[in-house]
């Protein structure tokens, strides 16, 4: 009797051990921040790339363009689908291209991410399959990364969706904080993207190891003699110092073969990541493969450890120092403006003080009646427009406002009077806002 019981217990222990290992590899609770970096980069790269295709839209993917529809339908596999197979009128191409570009922009900034990412994936696949002659490495990696982004819970950090979620919490309570998102599924999707990058490097190395030109160490020379990548200055340098060709050829193989094996270890990851990024920067600068290199580097962002980003954020916060914004809590318009402003402060760099309930020892109430104030660590107090102008470049979530606040002369010329007018009319603006949205809660006196 004890034999089968022992065997059952052994099998159960083994299974439990395997199950734990499986969960450890795939389902560790993780934030989405590495995937968000990929989302921002891939979204931006696709936006720029396809925006530059606007003048060639009908040449590249139209029925009267380079690839006749009957040709592509004749050579395609039934599982290859493209929305362009079903279009008839030119406006449909234009409308889809416009929608696709808007969705790329939305993906980049993380607005309505949960559904725009699917439109971007459908678009990428549709462009590829409508004219397969145009696809090369970047289209392979872009589609692969987009698919993983689609199944991943992206948009939960470094995004407008996150800003909206934080705002929704702060509307109820200005000092409330929304905890950072993390989940086991985010960890699994990050792992999938890491495996995708490792697989790409592994097979790239394997294909090179099977080629004589790479074994002989001459591949990089040949690349730069090819018409598409010809560069007289580089070729002169390589011809004079041919050992550089051997070094670059074998170095490329070495990085590509080492990457899938050494990228997983905590101690070697920074070096392998740096080497892979260095390799792609070379492709961009020396071969003009800017789009490809950028998308590959964004794929590598999945290897960025969330704690690196946390440490970077903490270091930034320390370097900038604490900032305290003092506002008028009796003014509904001011409070709602603060809610929006703070929703972009992902690092929590700005502290707030309502002078009506908690007077400042530095700024008098009389001063506060005129404008919002920002108190800096050294005790300086900046009023109104100058306060915003100081904060914007120091809070990463507000960097998009830098062009508005830092246009030489114009920003101050327009910004100061505009701020002063708003500050002096804030009661009127609050009552107008209340009248326009009768359902809103009065946030004053917090």
């Amino acid at each position: 009797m004890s034999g089968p019981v022992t065997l059952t217990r052994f099998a159960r222990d083994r299974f439990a051990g395997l199950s734990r290992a499986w969960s450890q590899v795939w389902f560790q609770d993780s934030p989405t921040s590495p995937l968000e970096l990929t989302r921002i980069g891939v979204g931006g790269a696709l936006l720029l790339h396809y925006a530059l295709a606007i003048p060639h839209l009908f040449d590249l993917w139209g029925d009267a363009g380079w690839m006749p529809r009957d040709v592509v339908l004749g050579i395609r596999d039934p599982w290859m689908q493209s929305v362009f197979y079903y279009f008839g009128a030119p406006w449909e191409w234009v409308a889809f291209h416009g929608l696709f570009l808007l969705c790329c922009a939305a993906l980049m900034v993380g607005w309505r991410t949960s559904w725009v990412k699917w439109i971007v994936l459908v678009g990428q696949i549709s462009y590829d399959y409508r004219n397969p002659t145009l696809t090369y490495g970047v289209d392979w990696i872009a589609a692969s990364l987009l698919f993983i982004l689609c199944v991943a819970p992206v948009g939960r950090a470094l995004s407008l969706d996150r800003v909206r979620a934080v705002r929704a919490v702060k509307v109820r309570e200005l000092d409330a904080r929304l905890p950072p998102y993390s989940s086991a599924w985010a960890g699994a999707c990050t792992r999938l993207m890491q495996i995708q990058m490792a697989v790409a490097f592994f097979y790239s190395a394997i294909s090179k190891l099977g080629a004589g030109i790479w074994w002989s160490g001459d591949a990089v020379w040949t690349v730069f003699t090819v018409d598409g990548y010809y560069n007289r200055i580089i070729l002169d340098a390589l011809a004079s110092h041919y050992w550089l060709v051997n070094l670059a050829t074998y170095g490329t193989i070495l990085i590509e073969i080492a990457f899938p094996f050494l990228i997983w270890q905590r101690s070697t990851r920074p070096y392998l990541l740096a080497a892979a990024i260095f390799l792609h920067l070379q492709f961009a600068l020396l071969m003009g493969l800017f789009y490809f290199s950028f998308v590959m580097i964004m794929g590598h962002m999945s290897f960025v450890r969330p704690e690196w980003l946390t440490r970077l954020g903490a270091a930034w916060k320390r370097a900038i120092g604490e900032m305290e914004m003092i506002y008028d809590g009796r003014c509904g318009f001011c409070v709602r403006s603060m809610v929006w402003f703070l929703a972009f402060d992902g690092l929590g760099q700005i502290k707030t003080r309502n002078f009506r309930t908690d007077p400042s020892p530095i700024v008098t109430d009389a001063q506060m009646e005129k404008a919002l104030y920002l108190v800096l660590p050294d005790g300086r107090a900046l009023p109104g427009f100058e306060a915003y102008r100081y904060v914007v470049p120091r809070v990463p979530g507000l960097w998009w406002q830098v062009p508005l606040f830092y246009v030489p002369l114009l920003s101050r010329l327009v910004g100061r009077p505009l701020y002063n007018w708003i500050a002096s009319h804030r009661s009127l603006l609050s009552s107008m806002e209340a009248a326009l949205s009768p359902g809103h809660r009065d946030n004053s006196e917090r």
Partner: protein
Amino acid sequence: MIWYRWRQRLTYLVMSAFVAWHTLAMVIAPAPDSSVLVRTLRAALQPYLTFFRLDNPWNFFAPTIGGAQLRYSLEDAAGAQHSFTPTEQLNWFHPDYLWFRDWHSAIADDPELYADRAGALLCRKHAALRPVSITFVQYEQRSFTPADQLSGKHPMDPEFVRVNTVKTVQCPAP
């Protein structure tokens, strides 16, 4: 409570099945079809790989690095020849540099599929020259050594290229 626990287990199972399936797809897609195992797995994965455009070889610049340039010559109504090297007008920093090069490769590699449409488009583009025909010519690059570079030669010099006539396309009568 029991339903919640079972739902959690089911979710975990579905997530595990998906990551296992997708990882298998990522690994099998570029694998050479030399073994029965790979061929069998590929047959099961192929619809998924194709539909989501995941079927990628990842063989950058291997096994060969081929260099070629497509040019075309236009014959006008008077019988005069006009030669064009389209890639010379392209900007290295713009994506159309690669789009046009890819299109040219497709024309040279498979003229029966692509040359007629390309010829028709070029006849229309150069209508002012009253073209009669367009002849595509591929300049295929051959070995170019460091010594050639140091002696001031260029990889596209006649001695380093083999010229192949790809196809002649007749322009429609105006």
